């Protein structure tokens, strides 16, 4: 899976869970500061991403995923 494909997949999840406009989702964007994803919604994003990409994202890793790019890199490395 390419980084672009992972970004698109994350954008779909973010739209479903938090109502984020897919056009706003880019690797440089921060989940909390730019996309307004609160902590409870972030939990939902993580669980949905695990399911969608067939990866495991441990709780202690989530705090390191500040930007969409961080998440893409983590998922890319796992899959």
């Amino acid at each position, binding site marked *: 899976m390419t980084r672009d494909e992972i970004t698109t997949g994350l954008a779909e999840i973010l739209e479903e*869970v*938090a*109502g984020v406009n897919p056009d706003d989702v880019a690797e440089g964007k921060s989940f909390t500061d730019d996309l307004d994803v609160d902590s*409870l*919604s972030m*939990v*939902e994003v993580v*669980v949905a991403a695990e399911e969608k990409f067939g990866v495991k994202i441990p709780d202690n890793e989530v705090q390191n995923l500040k930007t969409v790019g961080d998440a893409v890199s983590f998922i890319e490395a796992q899959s």
Partner: protein
Amino acid sequence: MSRPDVVVTGLGATTPLGGDVASTWDAMLAGRSGVTALTQEWAEQLPVRIAAQLAVDPSEVLDRVKLRRMDRSEAIALIAAQQAWADAGLADSGLDGERLAVSVGSGIGGAITLLAQDDVLEASGPRRVSPHTIPMLMPNGPAAWVGLELGAKAGVHSVASACATGAEAIALGLDIIRAGRADVVVAGGTEAVIHPLPIAGFSSMRAMSTRNDEPERASRPWDTGRDGFVLGEGAGIVVLERADHAAARGARVYARLAGAGITSDAYDMVQPHAEGEGAIRAIAKAIADADVAKRDIVHVNAHATSTPVGDMLEIGALHKALGDHPVLAATKSMTGHLLGAAGALESIATILAIRDGVVPPTINLDDPEPGLTLEVAAHKPRHMEIPAALNNAFGFGGHNVALVFTRP
């Protein structure tokens, strides 16, 4: 110090009869039933396959993303509260949040969320359980949502007294304003538990009508053919306001909330007291608190749920505490029983009856009980002057609440 007068300046509701107060009231006056067959697959195995479901689904009103963080009972409480807030003209009034309180309860709470997330837990494990589960199922959730959206900072309260909840929440709002803790209280009740488990539970108590083949005829208070209540869902919210506060901003006033009476039976968990003793005391207290002449209370929106025992006990209580002159309505004959929202929705019907000078009809009263010695506006509305009216609400646990409303 003289006690401040409290008035009603806003109304909001979403019910089996309509998505707002106007459509609900029109349907009531037309004698329409909101009871329909449950066509969901899960209903097939149940002894009860009828209910009064919302006329307008919350998804038609609230944004999708917001809705997925709310239990249905929370969503409809918020919808009704927003209507009442706008109706009261408070949306851009600059009201200080520290003078605004909320008193909104539910009889059962976020049961649909609890059960749905339990299904997730069983099927997919704990990690899949939604992080929104707790705020969705907690019983103070509806009040908290309303307080959050309206900016209420003088306290958010959630009464729980089963089917008396909506009326008790309004009574608490009256107390809050009288005590000087707020100038405006958004008060009422909400309930959304049309789901197999609550239906099976009530059904096992033999409390529900099983007239599955005639949904519209199933809720029939005081009729000899009644066989239990019909479960309904919905929310009713009123804006209570200190009278001088309402006058100062030139607000439209629907009615005065003149008094409230609250008692408990200390008798049985689910059976009302055999002589209706707790109900009699609640009505008497409400009349005394309101300081209104009994002869002026010419209309009662009764609790009358269509159960064999409760309906007639209330008649006896009204005879004793109020007299033989009031004209009664059982609007549950049309809306079904909204449990924790019932007392709030029926308060709204009581207020509009006063405003419009009309007792709403009680449908399905084809063969009245011989003991029904008080007048009921059966089948058709009754137009008459209503200077004051009473609303009763009783709940499992032995809760009795009576509210007296008068013309402004």
